């Protein structure tokens, strides 16, 4: 199980990094989403991988740590909200400038000024 979880996290992170390094907004958003999945699973596994045990203290060995589960829940909510926000931003940027590149637009004000001189 450790190998499966670890390679899943690694693969998702690798794909996320590749996508985030793209120049257009859509792959970046997908990459950020993948990254947050990977991070959530990683955070979850910080309490060690224990199957079929209750997340409460019953006796010394027979429980799974409940705290990472609570942390992951918080992290999921936050990353979900952030993803929604960045999707809206990407869409608004696309609709206002008719291009979905993530670069900053050239400074037209300064170019006009140069022409003036």
């Amino acid at each position: 199980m450790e190998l499966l979880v670890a390679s899943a996290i690694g693969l998702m992170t690798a794909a996320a990094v590749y996508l985030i390094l793209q120049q257009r907004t859509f792959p970046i958003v997908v990459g950020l989403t993948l990254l947050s999945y990977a991070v959530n699973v990683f955070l979850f596994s910080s309490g060690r991988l224990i199957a079929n045990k209750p997340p409460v203290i019953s006796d010394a060995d027979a429980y799974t740590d409940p705290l990472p589960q609570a942390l992951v829940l918080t992290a999921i909510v936050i990353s979900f909200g952030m993803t929604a926000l960045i999707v809206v931003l990407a869409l608004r940027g696309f609709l206002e400038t008719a291009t979905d590149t993530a670069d900053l637009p050239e400074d037209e004000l300064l170019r006009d000024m140069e022409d003036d001189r």
Partner: protein
Amino acid sequence: MTAANVATSWIIAPTILPAITAAVMILVWRRDIQMQRILSVASTIALLGIALFLYGAVSDGQTDAYRLGAWPAPFGIVLVLDRLSTTMLVLTAGLALAVLLYAIAGWDKRGRHFHTLFHFQLLGLNGAFLTGDIFNLFVFFEVMLIASYGLMLHGGGARRLRAGFQYVAINLIASSLFLIAVALIYGVAGTLNMADLAVKAREVTPDNQALLQTGALLLLLVFAIKAAFVPLHWWLPATYAAASAPVAALFAIMTKVGAYAIIRVFGTVFGDSASGDTLAAVVAPWILPAAILTLAAGTAGILASRRLLDLAAFNTVASMGILLIAIGQFDADGLTAALYYLVHSTIAGAALFLVVDLIAERRGDALDALVPRNPISQAPIIGTLFFLIALAVIGLPPLSGFIGKLLVLNATYDASQKWLIWAAILVASLMMTIAFSRAGSMVFWKVKGQVTGPTWATAHVMPMIVVALLVAASASLAVFAGPMTKMFQATAVQALNTPAYVEAVLGRRDNVEPQRPITTPAESATTSPAPVPAPAEH
């Protein structure tokens, strides 16, 4: 109740007050800008009052902890009040009041929900300064960032949207790194409470030490993104120069959150001057080179700027460089200088953004571009303000920048890389002098034609008064440099006193000196991950 008890229950107030204010504004007066302004200013004044009260309550040097829901630490979340956190609270509330008074002259009407977002931002900032829990710090960072995304886009426009996308993307990556760091630290130490972590981090077994150090370095990376270290600074000029002026001025405190977090986590929690092999010793070698590069990159940016807003944004980067040089010393003198410079650079950096806005609104379509244009109205007053603020940010006498730089130079006098540090700071000051004189002459002297901008009859006076007050704050920081430095000295000593912090939060004096690795998973089963691997006897 004794005075200390009264203050303890008020520790939560700096987070609750902005939360309630923001909620009331969006639920009750979402269309009534006048009521929003009244409530917003009243709430910020109250916040400043509470911050000053809390500052007074811990000025005798005690550390006070508020346990949410009365859960005993380290099981519940704690808010911790000491000199360092109250200093940041007072600075935040003071800056917020100035920015708010500037914004209500008209900027707050150029988009919706300015005041609501503003108070959510204050909630996140105050929470980050108060919290005593690493995961809670993450949550307050997110609150602060979500509000800052909204504020950054305030006023709209394609450029802001694009810069906003980059800003949100870099911060989402930073948040992911923060969570990875949190998971690594929790995985080996079994706690996220800062005071408890200060104890447990020293008990981690040698084979888990690498994981803990990775976590600590990742945390540094996250704070470095917030504080705009080179090479993680590139988002800052684009964001700050694209944001509206009051928002950029408020953001002057946002980079300082990164600096505060470095002091708190690597100074108080992981640092302990007693031994050499602490986690602070692992991260410290990274800070000084990054700080000098940050100063160099910021100065180069200032020299290359063709707009005043870029100048102001790169000035923020350069000032973070000097601040980090001082923090990187990790001793009482270094932190004293860092705190003085932190307060100074927040005030001066914010004032610079605001005065640039005053200039830009008077120059017609030239805005803040550094090209010859018409003379501006009220030039004597605005020119004087620009000149004084330039003196402050460059670090020339008589304002606080000079004393701040002097303190930093003095604190690094015994450092091994003294010559490098001194050369970097002094050359950067010269370069900044050149850049600012060039910018000032271009705007105020290289002019032709008719005066543009609002006349005295139509101009708003309040923004000018606010900028003048910020200059006065910088001046009084210089005049009262003696008593201020004494207070910052006490703050720095307290911030580096890990045992006292641990005792105040956990209510007992733990041995935080390095000691034998633990041989059983943990004494307190709930806070540690079930089986910590590799106890010695297995």
